[in-house]
């Protein structure tokens, strides 16, 4: 179709010799007078373009060209094409949801900004499990983990869900036909809908077994409870109703039986009308609970059993044999007397993983008719059965099982013989695992279902009987993930989504007329206990004989002895069972007791360490032993052997560890699906034979020196009684506050005046009575040291993670830390007395050196310390550029962009709360944590600036939160109610130890607390007048 037609615009163009052609040939119509221009010197001199001008033009054009070549960083941002109605940029939305990952269960509020969840907050409407632990607070970061499994996989290759479903359904049908058993191996969901769903799945596929598996088992307690009360659950304890709390090896302030006891416990620990609860702890490892106890008796795990038996004997009036050292025997006897005296206002808890012991504990509480003990609404947070799991392992190995479908479990990591189980799994026809990352188990499984994070999921939870809670997604799934439950529905051929399934479970079950929308809004629903009670998991009879006769169980306990050392495995406050091991906030979270980060280790008493040659000498100028020259703590290594399994583990000297026992934390030593930086520690699950946390162990020293990264290198208070004010209930009740909470005095004209008197003031004071004046009150009595505030602060304020080597160099960036002190004498009061009685140089040399070492079984105290926001701040006067100055509302403010980084303020801070940006902590491959990738940066709070290298930073008293509250109230034209002002830490504090508010509001709680007679300021004698108030710690030394 080509055409040879020629188009022309004018007649001239047609004519080949016309001017048009000539013009087309030459670019310039007129000749350029180059010759005139350059050839003639005269014209050149006449030219207006001089040589200088020419150079200017060349210079300019070169500069312009090179500048144009420099391209600024291009940041692509896509605006909303259609603005979502519910999202207002800059305004946070809150959604109620529930975390239920099999280990942590909590009803929470999720703060979302521009559609991104950025912060977890406690759901204060929840009746139970409304608190957020450090792990729950940190869980939001796990959402933005770029090591997550991003799509379904078959034998390691990425696949589509439709293919995945087709394969699995086909195999399930085949297996159904072949009559082979299908096993659902799941975490504890405690979910009414999932229980119903699994029942329907069983109905559909016939030969289905449901095994519930908890990585850290509470099976003994569940079995004992089930046997006694016919229902699989755990007794509910409300420690607020107990005046005497006796715990035998139960770390109930930690994760014992699902946790969640600290709120109620703390309420009873604050002296009211001269009364507070008394807490006696018998334990081997130094736990959070033991650290908070009024009386802590260290004893080995086998002695715990005897002690529990004897306690039973004394309480019920029988006599129980068994041998205990005289001092422990006396303590048990006294404690029993206290229990009996308190009667129904007493409670006994035990964490011994033994069905007999758990049964005895139940009986003791019944005998006491304890009001704090409730069996009508059992706790559902642990459902796993050791017997069922053992059966499953045996069946898988013997090849009886046709399919194993796992959800929320990682048995290859958490089983003592995990690899053997994994190898056996390979022989199973169909293996499916729903997991958030390619974990240890994934390597042995053919079908990997990418599971969503809980913030992307639907779900429901029954914390305890009648206490329901809902999980709703707060963001569209980031990756191509699908829930286990949705998958089950698919495989059952249902077109329903899990969301509608939950809705129907609720409306037919226990919603009973109340609104679904309201339940979803509140996140929680409490019903009278009549609701459906489906059994989660299949019943498997325990291998152990039922505890028919409590007497024989007691006798068995009383006979407990051990040969050699005993190991108690425990879960760390930060790491729990280890499923969030890739979360840098949790890795850098210091253990409340050892204050070590990025590590696990065995905890050992000084006496045992000396005996076994595992103790390092003090460092000198010439030798680096216990500490490096930069202060970093070192430890020896030990080979520990349990049932033929040997691990090389670093040794941490733990004051209060019972002689003859060691402890080791679960949750470490993971490798699969973790960044290199997060692959810390050694897996204690390898020693978790028979799911028993207590094991006999042999220990021998081995070569090598371990480098710990501890936030706190000095453990004692050195008798400095004005840092922690500490008194006994007796003194508190009988003596004047001036005795136990003396106000420091200074001399003016030879007259003693209080240090906060205006006469003692060098400064011109301002009128602070106008507007708001913020104070934060911290009660040392109710602070359990749980560290939820530490992570909450981390999340709210975009605090960087710096990694193990930097922490070891004392460069952690935490704005809020919880100092932990051990007493050097039996009590802190003893320390102060010892220091006060020092006379002369010789005595001070010796006794101060002694005060540096903690006692064998020390008293412990936790003290959260953040910027004290001094009204007379020593940092403010020394900054040459006035980068830190005082706010109108009492805060000490830090203008990051004004800071030149002299660090003078940090040096001159008596509280050492200022943190310097030694390096660039974001977008820096040296610090490859969440702030080094775009996904991880999603968690950043847009209201708080990310600090640059070279500037000082510190607690701002969450000024972004207080300003929001003020502006909201202003917009609404109303006064601010007490309790509306919060900081991240006070909001996260479940025990109510931290109270924040405006002291210019004289009706506020914080005003009352500030003027309480227990109130004092940290290092008050310096005269800094902080806006953070502490409350004297009162210990209940009254022996009933």
């Amino acid at each position, binding site marked *: 179709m080509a055409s040879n037609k020629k188009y022309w615009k004018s007649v001239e163009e047609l004519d080949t010799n016309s001017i048009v052609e000539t013009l087309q040939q030459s670019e310039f119509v007129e000749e350029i007078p180059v010759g005139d221009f350059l050839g003639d010197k005269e014209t050149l001199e006449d030219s207006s373009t001089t040589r200088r001008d020419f150079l200017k033009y060349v210079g300019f054009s070169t500069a312009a060209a090179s500048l144009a070549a420099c391209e600024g960083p291009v940041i692509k941002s896509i605006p909303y094409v259609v603005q979502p109605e519910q999202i207002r940029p800059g305004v946070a939305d809150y959604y109620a949801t529930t975390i239920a990952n099999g280990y942590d269960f909590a009803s929470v509020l999720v703060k979302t900004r521009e559609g991104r969840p950025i912060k977890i907050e406690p759901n204060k409407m929840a009746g139970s499990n409304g608190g957020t632990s450090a792990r729950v607070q940190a869980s939001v970061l796990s959402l933005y983990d770029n090591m997550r499994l991003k799509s379904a996989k078959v034998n390691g290759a990425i696949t589509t869900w439709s293919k995945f479903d087709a394969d699995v359904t086909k195999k399930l049908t085949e297996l159904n036909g072949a009559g082979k058993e299908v096993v659902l191996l799941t975490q504890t969901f405690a979910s009414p809908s999932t229980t119903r769903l699994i029942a329907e799945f069983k109905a559909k596929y016939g030969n289905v077994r449901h095994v519930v598996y908890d990585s850290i088992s509470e099976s003994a307690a569940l079995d004992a409870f089930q046997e006694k009360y016919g229902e699989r659950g755990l007794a509910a304890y409300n420690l607020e109703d107990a005046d005497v709390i006796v715990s035998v090896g139960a770390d109930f302030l930690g994760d014992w039986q699902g946790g969640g006891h600290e709120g109620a416990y703390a309420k009873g620990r604050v002296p009211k009308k001269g009364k507070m609860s008394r807490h006696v702890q018998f334990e081997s490892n130094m736990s959070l609970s033991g650290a908070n106890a009024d009386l802590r008796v260290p004893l080995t795990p086998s002695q715990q059993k005897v002690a529990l038996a004897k306690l039973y004997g004394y309480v019920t009036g029988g006599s129980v044999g068994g041998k205990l050292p005289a001092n422990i025997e006396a303590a048990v006897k006294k404690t029993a007397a206290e229990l009996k005296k308190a009667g129904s206002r007493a409670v006994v808890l035990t964490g011994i993983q033994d069905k007999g012991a758990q049964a005895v504990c139940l009986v003791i509480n019944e005998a006491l008719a304890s009001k704090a003990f409730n069996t009508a609404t059992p706790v559902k947070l642990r459902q796993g059965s050791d017997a069922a799991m053992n059966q499953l392992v045996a069946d898988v190995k013997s090849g009886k099982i046709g399919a194993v479908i796992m959800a929320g479990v990682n048995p290859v990591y958490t089983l003592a013989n995990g690899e053997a189980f994994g190898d056996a799994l390979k022989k199973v026809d169909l293996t499916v695992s729903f997991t958030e990352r390619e974990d240890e188990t994934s390597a042995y499984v053919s079908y990997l279902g990418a599971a969503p994070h809980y913030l992307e999921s639907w779900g429901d939870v029954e914390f305890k009987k009648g206490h329901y809670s809902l999980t709703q997604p707060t963001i569209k799934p980031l990756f191509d993930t699908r829930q286990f439950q949705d998958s089950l529905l698919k495989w059952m051929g249902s077109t329903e989504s899990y969301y509608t399934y939950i809705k129907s479970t609720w409306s037919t079950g226990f919603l009973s007329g109340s609104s679904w929308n309201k339940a979803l809004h509140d996140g929680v629903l409490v019903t009278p206990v009549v609701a459906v009670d489906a059994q989660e998991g299949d019943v498997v009879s325990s291998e152990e004989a039922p505890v028919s006769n409590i007497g024989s169980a007691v006798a068995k306990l009383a006979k407990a002895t051990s040969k050699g050392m005993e190991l108690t495995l425990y879960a760390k406050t930060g790491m729990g069972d280890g499923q969030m091991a890739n979360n840098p906030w949790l890795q850098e979270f210091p253990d409340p007791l050892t204050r070590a980060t990025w590590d696990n280790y065995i905890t050992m008493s000084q006496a045992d360490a000396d005996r076994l040659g595992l103790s390092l000498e003090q460092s000198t100028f010439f030798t680096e032993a216990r500490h490096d020259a930069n202060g970093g703590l070192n430890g020896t290594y030990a080979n520990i052997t349990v049932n033929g399994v040997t691990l090389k583990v670093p040794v941490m000297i733990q004051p209060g560890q019972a002689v003859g026992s060691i402890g080791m934390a679960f949750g470490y030593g993971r490798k699969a699906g973790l960044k290199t930086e997060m692959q810390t520690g050694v897996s204690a699950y390898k020693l978790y034979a028979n799911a028993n946390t207590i094991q006999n162990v042999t220990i021998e020293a081995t070569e090598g020196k371990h480098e710990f990264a501890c936030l706190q290198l000095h453990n004692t208070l050195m008798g400095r009684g004005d840092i922690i004010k500490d008194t006994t209930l007796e003194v508190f009740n009988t003596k004047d506050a001036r005795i136990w909470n003396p106000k420091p005095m200074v001399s003016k004209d030879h007259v003693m005046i209080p240090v906060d008197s205006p006469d003692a003031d060098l400064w011109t004071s301002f009128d602070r009575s106008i507007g708001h004046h913020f104070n934060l009150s911290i009660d040392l009595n109710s602070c359990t040291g749980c560290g939820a505030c530490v992570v909450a602060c981390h999340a709210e304020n975009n605090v960087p993670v710096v990694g193990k080597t930097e922490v070891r160099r004392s460069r952690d960036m935490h704005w809020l830390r919880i100092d932990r002190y051990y007493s050097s004498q039996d009590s802190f009061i003893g320390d102060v007395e010892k220091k006060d009685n020092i006379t002369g140089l010789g005595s001070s040399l010796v006794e101060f050196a002694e005060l540096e070492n903690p006692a064998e079984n020390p008293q412990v105290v936790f003290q959260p310390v953040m910027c004290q926001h001094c009204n007379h701040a020593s940092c403010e006067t020394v900054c040459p550029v006035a980068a830190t100055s005082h706010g109108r509302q009492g805060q000490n403010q830090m203008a990051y962009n004004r800071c030149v980084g002299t660090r*003078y303020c940090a040096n001159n801070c008596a509280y*050492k709360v200022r943190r*310097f940006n030694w390096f660039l902590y974001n977008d820096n491959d040296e610090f490859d944590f969440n702030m080094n990738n775009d996904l991880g940066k999603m968690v950043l709070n847009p209201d708080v600036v990310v600090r640059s290298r070279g500037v000082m930073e510190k607690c701002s008293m969450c000024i972004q939160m207080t300003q929001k509250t003020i502006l909201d109230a202003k917009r609404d034209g109303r006064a601010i109610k007490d309790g509306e002002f919060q900081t991240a830490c006070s909001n996260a504090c479940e025990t109510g130890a931290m109270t924040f508010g405006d002291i210019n509001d004289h009706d506020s709680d914080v005003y009352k607390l500030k003027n309480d007679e227990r109130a004092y300021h940290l290092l008050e004698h310096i005269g800094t007048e902080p806006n953070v108030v502490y409350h004297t710690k009162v210990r209940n030394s009254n022996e009933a």
Partner: protein
Amino acid sequence: MGSHYEAPIRKPLVTGNKSYHDVSVDVARPVEGRANKQWWIVFSISLAAFLWGIGCIIYTISTGIGTWGLNKTVGWAWDITNFVWWVGIGHAGTLISAVLLLFRQKWRMGINRSAEAMTIFAVMQAGLFPLVHMGRPWLGYWVFPIPNQFGSLWVNFNSPLLWDVFAISTYLSVSLVFWWTGLLPDFAMLRDRAVKPFQKKIYALVSFGWSGRAKDWQRFEEVSLVLAGLATPLVLSVHTIVSFDFATSIIPGWHTTIFPPYFVAGAVFSGFAMVNTLLIIMRKVCNFEDYITMQHIELMNLVIMLTGSIVGVAYITELFMAWYSGVEYEQYAFLNRATGPYAWAYWSMMICNVFSPQFMWIKKLRRSIMFSFIISIVVNIGMWFERFVIIVTSLHRDYLPSSWTMFSPTFVDIGIFIGTIGFFFVLFLLYARTFPVIAQAEIKSILKSSGDKYKKTSESHE
């Protein structure tokens, strides 16, 4: 200046039968001659150290202060130690040139030029540290009260660091002007002797057209006296203000009213030690034994002994006050200094600063060149430790035991310090080859009263 008569029992300050011309020739010799091998060796080593220091500074500024050994508890260590050490060293120059001028101590004339040069070079080293220790040194100009467009942002006049800025910059400028004023007649001498046109042009420039008229000399004397009057308070004020960095803080071991006099005495002490170190070498290398005589060294040793004793009294007073105050934090701070993990630094300081200068009571020792040299080095080491002890041992264990930790330097800390020593010697060595290192005009003014040639003549006339 002074009378032309001096008591015969006074030791001559210029030996070797020098005439006016001899003085000119001697002073001009290092400038006009060629550098010898030793000079090149020392210069190369210094230059290498200087370049290494520059490398460490570049690394620090590009990567962050984290390359140093500092931590959350110890926010200053080698940086400010070096700063105070160098500022302290600088003190001798002003003391010699200004205070001794006012007191008409003629022995200063042999040494003041180099002492002042040392001051200026030391203050330059000192000034480096406040700049590089900043987290964001590129914003360092914010410490100056300059008009700006950041709003009504102004510096914080309460901050001792700001006072430092003023103190050090005043000190540097006054010292520089004073030094240069003294140099004018000497540069003019070099100009007049110079044969190469380039040299002549340069020396003509730097001598600011000195013509040697009577009016020049009259103005020279007046200006010298006025500047001496201005500089004298600076001897006291600069280190007083540096000590305020610590004294006005609230940290036990820093918060001490004794610091101003204690720091000034320590500064003079270390300054004289450094002058001794430099001049003992210089008199040998440049053949200045006739101008920097044993008498000069002995007098400087006496100043070292006196100020060393003052410093010793200050140390003991601190300990006494800690005990007498009854403040437990203060008591612990000093107990920790003397017996804690940094006791080795404390006792190094005590031995170097308090014990070693006491040997100067013995005449034989203080007139020994070798011994004087060794003591001068020991004192400089001791004074470095003094600042390290004050800064690090006070910070590493302050109020809350939870924050107690230790400090250990990295190679960068050490590298920058070595770099400043290198820089200092590079400057000093260049100075020694291009400047009249002895104030020859002033020496000439006392030649007839204190020169041994004339002293002998006058004795013979009596």
